[in-house]
């Protein structure tokens, strides 16, 4: 999985700062495809669309009555879903900037939403410790299925092609395998902040609130690697893979962005990393295709786009 030439150094040159949010930014996602745009959602109850290259805001989507905690973008970039304190999932049409659907049914704030591959199903994980799977094809308002195995709030989930991975505060990562008809739950032991499977679905990366990021084998549940050094004890910060899944990147509660080599779990230079945000970094996401671009969103209200120097210059 890791390329033979080793991990690329992390993009650490600030390219643009997206600072229009009034409060902290909870989530920021690249659009699909070429990923030229960034969608951010924050405490100020808005979702904003940015041009990542120029750093300008394109649009504000304001319908949420509470903070926005999660965004997911469909494959065709025509719509996206967001969720937050409203206890319902908002489905947006990007072009018109209106909500096309509001899926309500959760009993608590919804921490995470995610589309499946063809955006026919959206999964939402909530404080009410359930995951609801909503059908977007039909007009049925009831969820297709409710996954209520979690014993505490579901903080993170990822919908893969044939499986759904959820991470819950109860310390479990649950893999719902649709093909096998099987639920594999791995007990991590600490509240799970983020779960991201690798592209090949063989492993997944789980960040827990005990200052650890673990790479787990999804077929056996064994620990493959353990990444430490950062501070993550009380907030959900998303850890992600670097380019080509050769590294692991995570922001921490001090505003630093840490990077490890995926294979030997060694901290990449500089060590310790510089402080890039004033407050906790809530979201890190690497550009899906570009080698040297990533973004970090922070509770200080800014989203920063990082690039390699040569990319920035161009």
């Amino acid at each position, binding site marked *: 999985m890791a390329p033979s030439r080793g991990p690329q150094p992390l993009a650490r040159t600030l390219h643009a700062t997206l600072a229009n949010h009034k409060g902290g930014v909870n989530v920021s996602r690249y659009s699909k495809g070429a990923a030229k745009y960034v969608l951010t959602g924050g405490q100020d109850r808005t979702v904003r669309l940015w041009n990542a290259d120029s750093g300008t805001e394109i649009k504000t989507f304001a319908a949420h009555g509470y903070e926005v905690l999660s965004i997911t973008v469909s494959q065709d970039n025509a719509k996206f879903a967001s969720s937050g304190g409203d206890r319902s999932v908002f489905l947006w049409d990007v072009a018109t900037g209106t909500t096309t659907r509001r899926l309500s049914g959760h009993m608590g704030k919804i921490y995470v939403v995610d589309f499946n591959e063809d955006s026919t199903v959206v999964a939402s994980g909530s404080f009410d410790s359930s995951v609801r799977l909503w*059908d977007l094809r039909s007009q049925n308002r009831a969820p297709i299925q409710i996954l209520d195995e979690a014993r505490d709030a579901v903080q993170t989930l990822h919908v893969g092609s044939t499986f759904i991975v959820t991470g819950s505060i109860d310390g479990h990562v649950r893999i719902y395998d649709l093909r096998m*008809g099987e639920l594999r739950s791995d*007990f991590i032991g600490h509240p799970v902040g983020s779960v991201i499977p690798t592209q090949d679905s063989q492993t997944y990366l789980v960040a827990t609130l005990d200052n650890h990021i673990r790479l787990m084998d999804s077929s*056996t549940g064994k*620990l493959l690697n353990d990444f430490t050094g950062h501070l993550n004890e009380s907030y959900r910060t998303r850890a992600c893979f670097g380019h080509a899944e050769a590294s692991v990147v995570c922001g921490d509660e001090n505003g630093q962005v840490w990077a490890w080599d995926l294979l030997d779990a060694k901290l990449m230079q500089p060590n310790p990393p510089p402080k890039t945000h004033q407050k906790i970094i809530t979201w890190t996401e690497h550009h899906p295709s570009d080698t040297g671009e990533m973004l970090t969103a922070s509770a200080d209200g800014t989203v920063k786009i990082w690039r390699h120097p040569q990319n920035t210059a161009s």
Partner: protein
Amino acid sequence: MTTRLKRKLGELGVDTSSRKASENFCLIGTPLPPLEKSKDTGEFVPLWKQDVRDEKGRRRLHGAFTGGFSAGYFNTVGSKEGWAPATFTSSRNERAKKQAMRPEDFMDEEDIQDLKDSRTIVDTTEEMDFLGGTQAELLGKTADDDSAKDPITRALETSLLPTPKDSVGARILKRMGWRLGQGIGTRISLKERKIQDKLAYDATTGTKFSGSTLDIPDDDEEADKHTYARRDTPVLAVSRKDNSHGLGYVPGLGLNESLGKNVGAGSKGPKLAGGFGLGALNDADEDDLDVYDHDQRNSRQRLAYDHINGDDDDVVVVGGRAERSKPTVSRSSASAYFRDGRVVLSGFVLSDQPVAEDRWFPLPDIPANWKPDPGRVWETNNENVPPPAPVRDAQWKRSAISADQRGVLLGETPLQAVPRSVFDYMSEKDRERIKRIASGLKSLSTDTGTDARSAAPAPPPPPVSLAKVEPHVAQAALRGFQPFTRDPSKQVRYTTYLQSQANQDGSAPPLTRLPHQNVDEFQKELEDYAKAASLFKPMSGAMAGRFTSAAVIDHGPKIIEGLHTPSIAEIEAKEAQQRKEEEDRISPKAHAAKMGMYGPLTREKIVWRPSKLLCKRFGVKEPESDVVEEPVAGPSKTTPSFTHPEQGVPIPSAGKDVTTPVQRIDGPRDLANIGLGEDETQGQDTLSYERPSMDIFKAIFASDDEESDDEDPVEEDVPDPPVPATEKIGFTSAADILNDTPIDMSTLKPTFVPREGKSKKSGEKSKEKKDKKDKKKKEKKSVLVSFEMDEEGDAVEPKQPKDRPAKKKRNVENETNGGDDHAMWAAKESASKADPIPPSMSASVEPPPDPDLQSRQKGRKRAVDFM
């Protein structure tokens, strides 16, 4: 039920006459409506027919579009036309007509009735009507009385007098000719009237009445011609005595005034200024009042003019008639002289007895060193203190001494009076108890209070005044809550103190001061104890019996006296227990996670069924629920891995393959199989019966060549769909994929299998199971021959050419078997369940026919088979 079925059931031991067996659930036709429209209030009325009516049958509530609440006039808004804009009408001309709206104007009949009912008779004792008759009567009277009264007096009367109100008695009297101010009775002559006037007296004072006598001279010739009204009997209006003075006592009067002469009697009225023109019969006016009256209170006699040595006879006394009525007395006293020749003051009488001599005592011997100190005398002597203001009633009423106490002070024998207080009604015991409580409280408060006060100003003398606690309080406190359990030494001192207080006869040693303790501290400690004792004593006496405490009193932790150090064993035991408890709480899973031993320990696998729609949306085939129990039955669909698992397994007895429909035992309940009871497959054969697919017909009727032609494309199809799936999921290791053992091409049949190893084992197991099940299945004669495709159509069942003859044979058998198409049903059943048949099982073996079974098969199906 037919008689045959009944009989059969009877054979089976089912009670055919029981209600259960003959129960009928069928309802044919629709029930007739009730014959007459009943007045059932509970009857269902559609919403649009429901309305609210008051007791008079008027509709009270209307819909919003028909005028809301009682819109009147056909429930329109007041006109046939409906809403019309109001036109402006000036109220200018109607202003005079306009009346103030009263609440009654807005009431309907019921409200007004309520209002009337709520009105009670306000006043039953009405006041007197001074003018005679009610107002109405008076008005009526005016017409004929015009001559009697001039209009001005009438006007005055009506304006000045209060509104006439007469009692019934007064009205009757008036009708009979009585007027206010007259006596009741027959009219009398003037002479009699005069006598009555003479006898008249003032009711309040008992003196002769001086007012309103008839002043008609006796010689009036007209007088005898008339009769006169009787003199009014004065009503004895006794003024309320609202003070506590003795009888006849006038507050603020000196001794002389109150005793010397009854001057006040008879002339209580205002003193009139002396002067001419005022007759005794004249009423005093404001102007006639003697403004100089006040400071001459002592001299009741006033002179009309200055009197200097004038003749006594010439003294003109101006005063009330009372004085004038007894001139003889004053004259006799006026003639007396003192021995020195002075005239005795009028009104005084010379005493016959000589004035008693004063007794004189010799002066006491004044000590030599005595110094006169007038100041001291001045201060101490009460005489020099200004006399206290006359005590008012309220004040001396409030004085602390009660009547009883005063009586005791005066030495009166106490009256055996009626009991005065609640305590008098109490039994002796209760009274004592309450007294004890009260005394306990009082003594405690006073004790602590005085102690505190004495302690405050100066260091008290070494003998410490012990803070006292009533013995019973102390005893109670000893039994009650122990406040100082945390401090054993203090607790000991506390109990010692309480014990000393409890038995005050001295049997218990009093609490002594600690050597290092100073007096103040000791004092404070005692006070603390006293306070604690009063606080923590259990509820005593009267109250204790009436309440029970809600909670168990906390006695604090068990104290081991002395310097207790728990032994090592004890500590260890405790720790071990704690550890054990902790471990009990932590599951092995958590333990493993704590140790970082992620893997099988931290992993749990359970069956999870994604809903069908979800699978559809994800583009995934629905997994089998019975993966766990029947791994062979459903591997082709669940696992992505694609292998040839059972080449090694010899196909049992080629001609006699047995296939049994695998019964799904505990599949999930869904809407489709609700109501089918425990057996889900019940009725399924009938429901899902459809024309068998062409394959079967082909298998039966077509030649072998045709078959093989059919077969080939199918076989080619097979590998296509799962391959990308494996790539996607990749959860199965590559080793499992394509387990390439030598393949007998003739028997080659690709199938889906979940895991390595498992498949073989479970295959065997299932075979055993099937053997066991054979007997059961045979009852239904369910021989499985199916090439039915899944409804999705993309899971293609592999077919085994080798089985064909057997199948054919079997089918032929079925055909010959009386056209019984149960086999077909069963085949369909299994197909509908989408249970793919593994190749080894695809042909069925006819077991050695059991004669009994066969006989049954040939016959009708028995009722038992349905049950």
